């Protein structure tokens, strides 16, 4: 039995997978790759595999982590080659390592996430204005948003601690959506969704960004508290 942690990327072709779809996909890929995975014991055994983060539908990413417990010994290069041979176009394993039983779970190691979003501005707003708004937004010591808690009640939550930086960049073609770069921080495995940050900018300043499902959201990098 050994635990394998791996880094992978997801590109446009498969960005519409839901978290569950992706779990199913990996489970089947392990089987096609002839990699035997361990199952939990008990009434309804499930495969012992997980991802550091649940990817939302639409997200593309250069940097994701997953882990799986395989039966027997498996070389990490072998793992990568076999998996990449069976994964569909749109998912690719970048690196993998075999780790000790006691290695902390990936989700407990999350530190920072680097995003880049392509967002359209509402017609009255230009790039310069957006830039100013973001600057003053970042100067706020507290940014409260309304959020539904687990019990379904609306509660206030300060999202400022999760935001490390935001910058906006214009594309060559001024008609293209602008590029918003964001670095968000994990605090006790919690973070905030980048779309929610944009929404709070809108809420404080009037409509700036057009927020709808056609926003393209991409993660460049995911930083862990330990080396990978």
């Amino acid at each position, binding site marked *: 039995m050994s635990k394998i942690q791996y880094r992978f990327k997801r590109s*446009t*072709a*498969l960005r*519409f*997978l*839901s978290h*569950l*779809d992706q779990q*199913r*996909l990996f*489970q*089947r*890929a*392990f*089987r*096609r790759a002839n990699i*035997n995975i361990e*199952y939990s014991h008990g*009434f*309804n*055994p499930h*495969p012992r595999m997980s991802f550091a983060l649940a990817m939302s*539908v*639409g997200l593309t990413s250069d940097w994701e982590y997953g882990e799986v417990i395989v039966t027997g010994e498996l070389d990490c290069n072998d793992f990568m080659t076999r998996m990449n041979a*069976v994964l*569909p*176009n*749109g998912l690719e394993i970048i690196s993998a390592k075999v780790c000790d039983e006691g290695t902390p779970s990936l989700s407990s190691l999350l530190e920072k996430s680097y995003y880049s979003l392509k967002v359209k501005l509402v017609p009255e707003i230009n790039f310069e204005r957006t830039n100013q708004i973001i600057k003053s937004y970042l100067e706020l010591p507290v940014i409260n948003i309304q959020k539904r808690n687990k019990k379904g009640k609306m509660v206030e939550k300060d999202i400022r601690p999760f935001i490390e930086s935001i910058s906006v960049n214009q594309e060559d073609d001024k008609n293209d959506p602008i590029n918003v770069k964001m670095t968000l921080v994990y605090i006790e495995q919690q973070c905030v969704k980048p779309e929610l940050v944009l929404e709070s900018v809108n809420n404080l300043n009037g409509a700036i960004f057009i927020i*709808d*499902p*056609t926003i*393209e959201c991409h993660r460049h990098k995911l930083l862990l508290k330990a080396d990978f």
Partner: protein
Amino acid sequence: MNNYIEKNILPLVTKPITYLGNEVNSVHKTPNKDMIRFAFAFPDTYEVGMSHLGMKILYGLLNEEKDIWCERVFAPWVDMEEQLINNDLTLYGLESMMPLNEYDFVGFTLQYEMSFSNILNMLKLSHIALAAADRKEGDPFVIAGGPCAYNPEPLADFIDLFVIGEGEEVILKIMEAYRQWKKASGKRTDFLKTVAGIEGVYVPSLYKVSYDEATGVIVSFLPIVDEAPKTIHKQFIDDLDSSYFPEKIVVSYIETVHDRVSFEIFRGCGRGCRFCQAGMIYRPTREKTVPTIQSKIRALIEATGYDEVSLSSLSTGDYSEIETLIKNLVEEYEDQKVSISLPSLRIDSLSIDMLEEIQKVRKAGLTLAPEAGTQRMRDVINKGVTEENLLDTVRTAFEKGWGHVKLYFMIGLPGETYEDIEGIADLGQKTVDEYMKIDKELRNKSLKVVLSASSFVPKAFTPFQWMGQNTREEFKNKQRHLKASIKDRKISYSWHDSGVSFLEAVFARGDRRLGKVLKRAHEKGCRFDGWGEYFDIEKWTEAFAETGIDPDFYALRNRGYDEILPWDFIDTGVKKSFLKAEAIKAQEALTTPYCPEKCSNCGIMEFKEGWQCHV
């Protein structure tokens, strides 16, 4: 188109990944001008269609041909439909995302009547003329096959040609005819006349039907050109064991209705249940051998990564070597966490032993289909199951720890009385009693017995093809009576019928005059009739009224044995005289034996030279 849709449309709809056609094992080819482009169309949602075995076979078979690219298309869900319309886009084949009206063939599979309105809707979204007569040179040929093609007449206006029976061999002949026709740069009508000569192909535009003005019944049904045969012979494959089956099947990303490898172990059924259309039209029974089944399943699991295999057929327990097969499969897959499921088991305690063998830990709900409540009624429908069989089965199941039993029945069977209805409630009660008899320590802690009753729909090519369906009023009264007859609170009862079964009865035995109704209903926005939330009986009622067609004529009328039925021009191999003899036996509650025990000469042996049942 590809990129635009991906960026601007798909983020706005539910299940966007199902509109991209990039699943594992989907086939992508580089098109050239000689390539035949075939869109296999399933007139229901992706989740339903992707569970369908026939599509997987034909998809594999056609794509084996170098110069054919077969792609898939499903009925887009209502949100996607809205996007297509608002953005002025054409429904497209998933793999290449080419607009459907640019294909050579659009081939619909007809699995149930309630998907007919979806066919019209899909044609409209594809910008293909609805009426076959309105299609021009260069337009796709719209073809159809599947179980509902056995009575193709309600769709006669819209479909260029039908394939009657098992399509594996016929479809390749049609493709060959198309290659020749293209080389010769022939006219549309030339192609249709040529293929009309292929056995198993029906081209509705080459036939004329006349009706008796007073009674509305058919007086003649005749070909209008020499190429079209008077009778269409259904096609079946003699040697199922060596027939084509793909080594790879497309694996959906999202969860589908049957999210597993579904492998057909035999075709046909010799039980001869009189209500069952599949049992008659898929005759004769043909089995695959155990080694073939095992090696194909092995290949499929390797190619897909599925962790469940379902052994499918009309009555899985009737497979001649079922015990060996299960034993072998369990042995092979025990360590690999691949589970085996057995749908459509017969009612006997042997079935429970088999279920135990495959589900060592989990005791999911047990579903059984006695179909009718009294022995007399079960004899009428020739369902060879006794009360003793049923109670033995549930007792064994309760002893082994099952606690949830679902029993399926039909209401509105021929000659049914209120006593037969009460029999359903009785069987539910006796099932509860069996549970009570078992030691508290042994049995499951909780008991749930669900009685589920559906409204019977008489189908073409069955012994009940001549009978009128019960009226909605009769159904309602019977349901009410059944509900009142259930006394025990451990029994729950479910019944849904919003008028769907009436409409199903109209189309299951309809003729080509119904094309007008279908078109009108489509214009009124009918689609997804099989989905409760979209079925609108009001619109259908209006469509009948506005086209001056009486639905009762089709659903409720008792036909005479000598009437020309709209599907009489098709020969399934089971003789009409056999069906009639069965209908008469049904009236006296006389049963007909199971084929392997005694042949009742249904006609299939004379139908195909050299064919011998059960040798």
